[in-house]
């Protein structure tokens, strides 16, 4: 599939004045998960985050944990997911999200190769701090793939500048101190952090973790450039494996943004 530059693509959407909407799907979650990825693209996703399941996902709440276990039981591996993606031909960038042990086990160079094969434009490795990312970054650089870094409400001002300076593609803003999962109310911390981030970077600022519905997405994108929707989408896939209700939910999010 075509290689798409993540940062250029997201910035062009921002320039058009539309909030960026990025759904997350666990790779290998159902037999036809690739079909769901295609549908998301048709329904207006601006990029898609593909989760590669890990047995011990530290920052994930119950929904993504369950999805990860299901995908692993179905035999999903880092290689199988990334190489399946190679069959797609999408006009939007894909971002692979996983934990560092899977990268190390594959070896960063091989992992970067697989990402390249799968047409992935960027990676998100939440347990890999910028201080430790050189081996991965070196391998990704050779394939022109970028590594997206995360900031959290507890990140100090000084560190926020440091991370924003090192992140590429966009800046992933963890909206709430907690694990991935839906919340009844939009945490105030999400908009405060997005505001802080916007002051120090020109990278697109996307808020993830804890964004559960249209109203919250609208609220947070008053400040942030976009949102990542994970658990709210995946819960619906777990409840209805056809993915119909998940896609319907995504459509209404897209209409709201």
């Amino acid at each position, binding site marked *: 599939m075509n290689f798409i530059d993540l940062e250029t693509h997201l910035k062009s959407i921002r320039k058009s004045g539309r909030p960026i909407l990025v759904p997350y799907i666990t790779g290998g979650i159902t037999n036809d998960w690739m079909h769901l990825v295609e549908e998301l693209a048709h329904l207006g996703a601006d990029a898609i985050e593909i989760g590669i399941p890990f047995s*011990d996902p*530290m920052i994930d709440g119950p929904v993504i944990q369950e999805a990860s276990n299901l995908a692993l039981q179905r035999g999903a591996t880092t290689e199988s997911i990334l190489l399946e993606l190679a069959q797609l031909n999408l006009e939007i960038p894909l971002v692979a999200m996983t934990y560092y*042990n899977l990268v190390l086990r*594959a070896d960063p160079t091989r992992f970067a190769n697989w990402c390249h094969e799968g047409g992935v434009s960027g990676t998100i490795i939440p*347990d890999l701090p910028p201080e430790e990312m050189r081996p991965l970054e070196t391998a990704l650089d050779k394939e022109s793939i970028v590594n997206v870094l995360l900031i959290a409400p507890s*990140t100090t001002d000084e560190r926020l500048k440091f991370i924003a300076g090192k992140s590429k593609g966009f800046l992933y803003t963890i909206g709430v101190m907690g694990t991935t999962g839906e919340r009844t109310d939009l945490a105030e911390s999400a908009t405060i952090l997005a505001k802080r981030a916007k002051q120090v970077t020109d990278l697109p600022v996307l808020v993830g973790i804890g964004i559960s519905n249209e109203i919250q997405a609208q609220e947070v994108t008053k400040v942030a450039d976009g949102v990542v929707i994970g658990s709210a989408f995946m819960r619906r896939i777990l409840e209805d494996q056809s993915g119909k209700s998940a896609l319907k939910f995504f459509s209404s999010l897209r209409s709201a943004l």
Partner: protein
Amino acid sequence: MPVMGEPDAFGKFGDFGGRFVPESLIFACQELEDGFRKAWADRAFHDEFEEILSSFGGRPTPITYCARLSLKLGVNIYLKREDLAHTGSHKINNVIGQALLAKRMGKHNLIAETGAGQHGVASATAAALMGMKCKVYMGAVDIGRQALNVFRMRLLGAEVISVESGAKTLKDAVNDAMRAWVSEVETTHYCLGSVMGPHPYPWMVREFQSIIGKEASLQWEKLVGKSSPDYVVACVGGGSNAAGTFAGFAEATSTLIGVEAAGGAALSFGIKGVVHGMASSILQDEYGQINEAHSISAGLDYPGVGPEHAYLAQINRAKYVSANDSEVLMAFKILSQLEGIIPALESAHGIAWVINAAKTGEIEPGSNVLVTLSGRGDKDVAQVSELLGGFSGAGPGLEEVDF
């Protein structure tokens, strides 16, 4: 530079350790590191720590010479008796240190993970002593296996939270404790139970546990003499009692031996990876998914190992071996019958290796061997009785051991 010194600026011991946590926990780890550095440089903190370990924790624990076992094996075996510390294991050293530190940092809630329940009981104990709230994360499977310790924790006022994620055992309890810590970090200290996890835990927990090795080293000189033990032996799950023991002998000529459970031998069969915030040697499959560890002792059922042990193995300062379940069961009986000490199954791993190594001649006759007996075996008696044919009567396994 000391062999067991401070980790580097990234929290590494050689290639191992570090701080591989989500950004949400970076500040908490940094804050904890700062708090620990300040406290550990403060004489008043040491005084308070040592005073509580003495008046409440039962320290110093003695060294016991095993006369009958030594005679049988032809090597001189000495035990550092952490089984005599309050709550029945070395775990109390670490929790008193961390609870004091948490208070100093203005955090009045503790969370902890536990496998067999020993660290959970110790954490609940420290919380009761200091008037803190305590929540213990324990795998649902382990809760089923360790009913007595679950009750002890509740009796001590702690809340035991059943972990239903993953395999529902220790590694999942660590995951859930870390997840909980992220959302409660402002008011809560995560009281990690071993020399593992993100920096500064492996270093900090080793420092709190180093009281074992420092005490033992001084006691050894009085009891045996100037020359260090030929062998210093301790069991290794995450590796806190071993790290604390080795810290007292790393600069000496002693051969340091860590004994893992054969079914959880991360240093023998593991591959370098990252889990629970640290780079270390980890039991994992070809895809990088973490394997479950299995052994007779729940306390050693951990798929990783403290990063400093991975480092000590890499530089050949310590040697890591393993003992299997039947060797351990035999050692459990031997120590009970020859020395009148019922060891924890975890600690019996160290004894099992010494018995084997003395018999094969790996340990030369006449050698002086110091083994840290990390805990007492009361908690394991029900399990062992089942394995040996039940409580009633002298089951088939209870005849006098002959070896």
